[in-house]
């Protein structure tokens, strides 16, 4: 049995309790709402894109420690990334959280371009969620919402 501490690491608890980049952006260029109908959790992602780069990103919403920490860590690693880099981080995170073959404990799943290793490491604490299938959606909600925001904006994303 996995220890609860593998899921609720200090960094997760810290970001869950004190989320970074929390609150709306004034005049975001992109925005999307996310909703998990299963638990009622909601998240809104605010992005300001400048020349294909995430110049500013923030979030607000109501959720559990996992979803809040995941959103918080995501906004930290996504800041100043190009859309291509953001896509690579998304793919990396997805493997990490859903327990795909790659994305092991050393971080840096194949496909994570050079220069993003540090971001990969910072997401590592979220890997614990893959042992809790019922909670994976909590971790991925903010990420799917960010993806929807930068792709089109204005859509409501659901994970259930």
């Amino acid at each position: 049995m996995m220890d609860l501490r593998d899921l609720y690491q200090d960094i997760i608890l810290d970001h869950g309790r004190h989320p970074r980049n929390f609150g709306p952006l004034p005049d975001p260029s992109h925005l999307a709402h996310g909703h998990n109908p299963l638990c009622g959790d909601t998240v809104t992602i605010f992005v300001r894109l400048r020349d294909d780069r995430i110049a500013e990103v923030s979030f607000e919403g109501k959720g559990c420690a996992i979803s809040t920490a995941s959103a918080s860590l995501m906004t930290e690693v996504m800041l100043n990334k190009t859309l291509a880099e953001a896509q690579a981080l998304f793919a990396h995170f997805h493997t990490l959280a859903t327990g795909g073959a790659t994305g092991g404990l050393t971080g840096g799943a194949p496909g994570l371009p050079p220069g993003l290793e540090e971001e990969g490491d910072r997401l590592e604490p979220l890997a614990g969620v893959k042992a809790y299938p019922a909670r994976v959606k909590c971790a991925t909600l903010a990420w799917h919402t960010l993806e929807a925001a930068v792709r089109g904006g204005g859509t409501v994303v659901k994970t259930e």
Partner: protein
Amino acid sequence: MSVLIQERPMVARADGGAFDPVVIRRQFPVFERNPGLVFLDTAASAQKPAAVIDGLAEYYRTDYANVHRGVYGLSARSTARFEAARERVARFLNAADASEIVFVRGATEGINLVAQAWGLAFLKPGDQVLVSELEHHSNIVPWQMLRDRLGIELVVAPIDAGGGLDLEAFAHLLTPRTKLVAMTHVANVTGGLVPVERVVDLAHACGAKVLLDGCQAVPRLPVDVRALDCDFYVFSGHKCYGPTGIGVLYAKRAVLDAMPPWQGGGDMIRTVTFAKTTYQDAPQRFEAGTPDIAGAIGLGLALDFMDGLGMAAIRDHEAALTDHARDALLAVPGVTLIGADGPGLGVVSFQVDGIHPHDLATIFDRHDVAIRAGHHCAQPLMDRLGVVATARASFGVYSDEDDVAALVAAVRAAQRLFGLTSAR
């Protein structure tokens, strides 16, 4: 351990024996297969006693054939057992006659049947259906669908500050346009006991019919539909120790007789030609197709099981354990109860400061404590209470104070994990 068991307060049983959850638990194989399991999600679905599990297998091995058709002996036996289950349900609810019992898939289907058969036939634009803020989605959505189709109005009776039905406000919302009051008997989120006797009296005085959702009530207290005088009563078998896939719609015979059929098919007809079909009387008219025969028989066995313990004793047990759980949870700093001012039966909703209910449920699971976290299919009530989700512990005949102690220990463990133990 034996000392603990002897010290546990016992509730007097109808037959004079003691109501002992530890002894009762031995009749539930799931606890044997999952030692250490603290199951506190009976409101979602109850575990099954061996009498039901084995009874289903025995029926399939011994008497199984389709019902209402076969001339041969096996089919006759199967039909007799199926109809005996209907009589068993009628007796359990104290219905006037077995023909007032319609077998459905569950309470949800029962409510949809009333909405589609009775509602479509008797409601006109401008008529009102009155529900409460306590309702499960299954007693909201069917009426919304009917509203959008017929142009009727859905009116919502509010809860009071304590989380119970505001009877005064309810009385004021009743008008000659109110044709149906559809309300829960025991609220699935809070465990609150709704004063349904008053609801029925007030509604009938206005000429409205009354549907009661008994999903959380039937497993927990004696229900007498004739004493209640309700027009419709629905419940699900799986919440009262019976199989999934079977439920009951009770309706007064005169009401059923006036209702047109709902689904068409075999078993519900008298004669069929391509020009015209004539229908069976109730209840067969509302049971198109081969029914869940084994489910109905299993439900009958589950009702036997509950009656064997005594419904009055079960009610006393559920009430005492609910009071105990409320007290035990409130004694933990940082715990808030949701909608627990009035009498409660078998369900306790709560929150823990600084810990989301989903995190609680995950942490509890690691302590082998199974609870429900979320909106409990009652999003309008969550909105009204100003919460996104709650943690919900619910009890059954096999639950006892040791389960509550494990729940409280799990709350404290979660607080320690989250570094919230300063308030001690």
